[in-house]
């Protein structure tokens, strides 16, 4: 999916609520922190040793999707699996660098 175009962003407004013209918001307005995909991958893989994670940007830099395969998931419900992944990256939700993280999780195939 392509990144969001400028026209898709809400019209910037200053603190008084007036529309701000120009291509870029004034410094007081935030574009939203961009998530660091490789950092998120590392956060998930270190929280779940032996796992492999792939994190992609679904647009805008803060709507992400991750596929995680982890041995810790064996025997857990999907809900429990997702909770483990969310917990690993909670700090990036808290600081606003991620707005949404769609997940696909599974345990490795039995060998």
């Amino acid at each position, binding site marked *: 999916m392509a990144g969001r175009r400028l026209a898709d962003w809400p019209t910037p407004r200053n603190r008084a609520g007036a529309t701000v013209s120009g291509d870029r918001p004034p410094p007081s307005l935030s574009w939203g922190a961009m998530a660091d995909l490789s950092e998120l991958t590392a956060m998930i893989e270190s929280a779940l040793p032996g796992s492999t994670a792939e994190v992609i940007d679904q647009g805008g830099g803060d709507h992400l999707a991750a596929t995680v395969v982890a041995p810790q998931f064996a025997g857990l*419900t999907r*809900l429990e699996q*997702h*909770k483990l992944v969310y917990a690993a990256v909670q700090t990036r939700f808290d600081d606003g660098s991620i707005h949404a993280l769609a997940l*696909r999780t599974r345990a490795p195939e039995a060998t």
Partner: protein
Amino acid sequence: MSDTLTMSEQEILDQITSEVADNRVFLYMKGTPEMPRCGFSNQVVQILNHLEVDYGARDILVDPRIREVLSGWSDWPTIPQLFVDGKLVGGCDIVTEMFQDGELKDLLAK
């Protein structure tokens, strides 16, 4: 559905626990099954309707405290939340994935 606006948070929690206990399948959503007000909630509604499941639903938008109390109780931050047999199954991602894999149909057919 009763109006929650005059209820205390404890009464809202009691209502949630009885809804989840009394309905085999219960969905907390934004809007109603007839008029969903969020794409994620709508997707779960479409899946449940497709599977021809009888389910109860509550619109969490009518009182912001419902969502706060629900998420505190279920330990799950987002809406929608689908409960089956008293247990949280998940939100839109999980329900969709389980539907695609046929697991949801199996769970509901039990």
